[in-house]
């Protein structure tokens, strides 16, 4: 079996959603049995956002892939990210089932 993939949570302090996103991510990693520590990466400037290709806070990457890939032309800047839940509602954090699907994909690739 390969090593567990890198799991990253990229966040910006101007948006208060990252603690909720981290708690949800850690809960789902545990439920799915993926032994990964979440690396927290604070994005501190627009230049940093551009370097990290950060479309907003929070952004979750597993194995380097954004679990909800941003649309074409999405700017990389210090902002709060707008997610759509599976029922269509707008949310500051990704739908937990999207997180779970990404974790399961990562597990299958081990």
């Amino acid at each position, binding site marked *: 079996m390969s090593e567990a993939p890198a799991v990253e949570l990229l966040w910006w302090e*101007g*948006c*208060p*959603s990252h603690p909720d996103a981290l708690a949800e991510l850690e809960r789902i990693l545990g439920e799915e049995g993926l032994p990964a520590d979440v690396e927290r990466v604070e994005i501190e400037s*627009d230049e940093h956002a551009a370097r990290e290709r950060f479309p907003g806070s929070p952004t979750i990457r597993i194995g380097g892939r954004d679990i909800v890939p941003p649309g074409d032309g999405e700017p990389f*800047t210090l*902002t*709060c*990210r*707008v*997610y759509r839940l599976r029922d269509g*509602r*707008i*949310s*500051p954090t990704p739908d937990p089932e999207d997180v779970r699907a990404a974790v399961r994909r990562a597990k299958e690739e081990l």
Partner: protein
Amino acid sequence: MIGIGDSAPGFSLPDTDGVDHSPAEGGITAVVFTCNHCPYALAWHDRIAATARDYPDVRFLAVNPNDAKRYPRDSYEAMQRRVAEEDWPMPYLRDESQEVARAYGAQTTPDIFVIDAEGRLRYRGAPDSDHRDPAQNASWLREALDSLQAGEAPGRPETKPVGCSVKWK
């Protein structure tokens, strides 16, 4: 920055048609700092709009104070497009200088300030306790309006505003 019981600063700001609006004289006003790009403001928008429809005697003023240079989704043109595409029951005002947001001490979008008929601040904070739960129905804001319309002080005059930080220039 103003506190509960203080006189609320007066202002006049343009809506998306260029018409100026001010807080009501002799009536209740809800000043809602909000914006286009913040998921918290967007998640709560329908509940705030429904409250505006349910309280026709209250003047609701939505105010966007964000720096549109760094956040183009909050530009005046983007505000105009949004109002044209959606059904807004309240004017959407542009605080280009950010002076109104600073005078009120707005911290986030959304951040709500309810002013009584004497011009004093009577409620400040979030619409309700959970942006994720539409059933909350802006209950904190509605409680404050119900109290003021009954001639009473709101029992919960202040709550913690929750949302994206105001984007200062």
